[in-house]
């Protein structure tokens, strides 16, 4: 224990910050991009840049097509309703030839199958990165993210205690003061203004995976029948297969019936957005018609109706419990699947503020160490490299991911890796490269990597133009806001990269002068973190 409560909170803040910030930045960065994951999908898979789909979607016409693709018969079918953000109709099915789950994409207007660019894009790479880090082995990614989420809560609470003047620093940003002061101001400002948002984000993130982090809680209620518990909570109980052949009746009729039931219950907020059929081909096929991600409400997973697939009879019309409704709100808050554009952009900005909070926290710590006289050159260099690689580095790697997506040929395959995997490799190789670069270049790497962000962003916009013909004017005229927005955001990133690069150059130049005359100092300015 430190001598005062505040000092021990400072100790806690410093150490949990050092241990978790790099990881938190990666999670927050990917999470922030996930706010626009479907727009990124459209940008990276240009074949799906379709006009907004019609209101009435018939699933029946797609059933035989997907069954054909699956090899003439299948046991599992899934359709995702197209909407403005995701204008193509996506189907997942169990392929009886390959014995694997596959995806097919259709044009909802013509009904034709679309051959899509092989890319994991936003929903397949960026979104899962932010909760699993793509480390599936033994759920280690989930646990690391869980550790980071818990650290975030610790950081927020300890941060409040070490901060003396919460209200007064709400607006404080002294651009004219020294770099160190400016870093701390930015750290305090981004922390304080978005505090409720960041706190709730870390909390709901932990709650969503609570069954992984606290498995005994689930076990104590469900015993060995975990599946049964989830089926009860989410209303997804299915019939036991009868092992007798059965014909699937009209899905559209079931969709209409579910819509009618939901309207009757007063819970209707939009058309069913997905249809899932299990035990396809069996007399006891079960069809789930759900509105998992309603556009007009925060809470998700409220409307679920299941049908007997061979008769069309309603098996169960689910009414979630009160606890579940609360959880659904918290889940919906985190998933951001509602159609609320101003709020979507506010999430994006607040997410970036979170990234700024983590990086300024790290930078301040490095600066404080140097200022205190702890200037073991190797230590400073490695801490700095870690900070640079985990902040600007991951942004450059994301740019490399976009560039790889645009330059790789349609059928690319290298050493057994398919196109989607090659894009991921581009990301990870460049990311590791940024750490190496930062450790070689020292403080100058800030400038290099800021300019690299700008370069990668501009290259992405130009490559999108070159490979698809969709430049800014074309997309604006055609009303392709997903692609237009993505290009504009990339250009904004380029502008920020250039400004940061120029700033970093002047700071580095000034620092090289002052570091020569540096003397160890013990005293900390008011409000500063007691760096240990």
């Amino acid at each position, binding site marked *: 224990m430190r001598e005062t409560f505040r000092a021990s909170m400072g100790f806690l803040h410093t150490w949990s910050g050092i241990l978790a910030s790099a990881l938190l930045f990666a999670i927050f960065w990917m999470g922030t991009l996930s706010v626009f994951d479907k727009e990124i999908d459209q940008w990276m898979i240009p074949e799906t840049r379709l006009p907004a789909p019609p209101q009435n979607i018939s699933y029946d016409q797609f059933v035989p097509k997907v069954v054909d693709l699956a090899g003439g018969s299948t046991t599992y079918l899934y359709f995702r309703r197209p909407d403005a953000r995701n204008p193509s109709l996506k189907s997942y099915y169990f392929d009886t030839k390959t014995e694997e789950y596959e995806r097919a994409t259709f044009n909802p207007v013509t009904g034709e199958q679309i051959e899509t660019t092989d890319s994991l894009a936003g929903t397949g790479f960026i979104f899962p990165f932010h909760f699993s880090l793509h480390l599936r082995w033994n759920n280690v990614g989930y646990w690391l993210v869980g550790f980071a989420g818990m650290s975030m809560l610790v950081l927020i609470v300890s941060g409040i205690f070490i901060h003396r003047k919460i209200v007064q620093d709400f607006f404080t940003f002294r651009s004219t003061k020294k770099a160190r002061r400016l870093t701390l101001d930015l750290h305090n400002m981004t922390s304080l203004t978005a505090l409720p948002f960041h706190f709730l984000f870390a909390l709901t993130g932990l709650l969503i995976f609570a069954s992984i982090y606290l498995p005994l809680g689930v076990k104590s209620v469900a015993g060995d029948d975990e599946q049964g518990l989830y089926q009860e909570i989410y209303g997804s109980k299915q019939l036991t297969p009868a092992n007798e052949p059965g014909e699937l009746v009209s899905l559209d009729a079931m969709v209409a019936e579910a819509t009618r039931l939901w309207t009757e219950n007063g819970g209707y907020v939009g058309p069913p957005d997905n249809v899932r059929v299990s035990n396809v081909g069996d007399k006891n096929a079960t069809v789930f018609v759900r509105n998992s991600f309603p556009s007009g409400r*925060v809470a998700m997973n409220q409307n679920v109706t299941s049908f007997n697939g061979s008769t069309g009879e309603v098996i169960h019309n689910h009414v979630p419990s009160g606890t579940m409704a609360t959880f659904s709100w918290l889940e919906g808050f985190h998933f951001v699947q509602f159609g609320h554009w101003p709020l979507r952009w506010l999430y994006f900005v607040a997410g970036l503020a979170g990234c700024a909070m983590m990086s300024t926290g790290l930078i301040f710590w490095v600066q404080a160490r140097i200022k205190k006289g702890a200037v073991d050159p190797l230590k400073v260099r490695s801490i700095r490299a870690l900070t640079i690689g985990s902040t600007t580095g991951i942004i450059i790697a994301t740019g490399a991911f976009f560039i790889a997506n645009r330059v790789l040929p349609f059928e690319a395959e290298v050493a057994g890796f398919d196109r989607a995997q090659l894009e991921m490799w581009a990301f990870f190789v460049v990311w590791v490269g940024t750490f190496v670069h930062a450790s070689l270049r020292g403080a100058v790497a800030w400038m290099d990597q800021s300019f690299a962000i700008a370069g990668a962003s501009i290259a992405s916009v130009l490559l999108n133009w070159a490979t698809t013909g969709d430049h800014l004017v074309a997309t604006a005229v055609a009303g392709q806001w997903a692609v237009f927005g993505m290009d504009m955001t990339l250009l904004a990133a380029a502008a920020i990269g250039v400004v940061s690069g120029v700033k970093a150059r002047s700071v580095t130049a000034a620092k090289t002068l002052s570091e020569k005359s540096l003397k160890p100092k013990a005293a900390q300015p008011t409000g500063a973190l007691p760096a240990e």
Partner: protein
Amino acid sequence: MSLSLMVLATLTAIIGLACLSLSQDKHWRVVRPSKTAVPRVRELRIVGYGLLVVCAALCIARDGISFSLILWPLTVGISAIVIGMTIAYRPVLLKPLASLAAQEAKA
């Protein structure tokens, strides 16, 4: 209708927070119209917090309670960053408001 309500909600948050920032001595000194002018702190705080309540009401009118639980804190939080940056880089934009809120110091 819904867009104008959103714009209005954002404006009330920004002006409300501008009032609150001017009620703090540290920020007042950057913006004050003259060296002798002091802010009407009580009025600034009443108007400032009042506008934040109005902003909450506009959010609820637009989207209901469930959305407003997210929309309001985010609108206010990000507006606070906007005000902080305005004080740092374009304090002149707050001068008109400061002139309104100023009074001469009592001898």
